């Protein structure tokens, strides 16, 4: 039972490069989320999805894009990496609105230099 799988675990990008953070879950959860965690801070919501084909912005969406073509996958795209996007990124999923809690992936540490 894999839960929520994120790849890669670590990545260094140069300013202006693009990349996609992958997230997949095998629990048939309809809700999925992307958060970022900056040093000394709690997690902040970037984007979320309530089902395949439906996405919405969270608190800090600028500089990111998402898509949800299947129930299982929810990739996060960074188009023009900036140093301000250096952070740890967490993907999570939940059944319904997450009232019983989320299942989180193990995170991706991204450094933009």
């Amino acid at each position, binding site marked *: 039972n894999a839960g929520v799988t994120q790849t890669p675990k670590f990545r260094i990008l140069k300013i202006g490069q693009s990349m996609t953070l992958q997230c997949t879950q095998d629990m048939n959860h309809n809700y999925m989320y992307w958060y970022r965690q900056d040093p000394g801070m709690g*997690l902040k919501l970037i984007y979320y999805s*309530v089902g395949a084909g439906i996405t919405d912005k969270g608190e800090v969406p600028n500089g990111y894009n998402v898509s949800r073509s299947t129930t299982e996958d929810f990739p996060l795209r960074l188009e023009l990496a900036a140093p301000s996007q250096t952070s740890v990124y967490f993907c999570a999923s939940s059944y*319904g*609105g*997450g009232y019983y809690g989320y299942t*989180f992936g193990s995170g991706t540490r991204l450094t933009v230099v």
Partner: protein
Amino acid sequence: AQTVTQSQPEMSVQEAETVTLSCTYDTSESNYYLFWYKQPPSRQMILVIRQEAYKQQNATENRFSVNFQKAAKSFSLKISDSQLGDTAMYFCAFMKHHSGGGADGLTFGKGTHLIIQP
């Protein structure tokens, strides 16, 4: 918008002691959920305990319990018989209830770094 405040950036206690982590929140919602998540050095976010705002009874999960004071908007976490494995960042989080379904995610506090000393 909701805000969650954790006023203790770091706490340190001896193994087997009891420790209480503080959390306050600000909201105009009447129906919501509160959570405590643990983040050990492995970075994995682990749900510790949850509380439904419409329930007066405080939630308990083994050595972990909460003191939920709705009027005061306070949600503290008590860890009894603390163990070395409890060393971690602890995050308090808020989620409002959507009566028609849907959700807009969790709002997290900045966390408390709890260190259990042997």
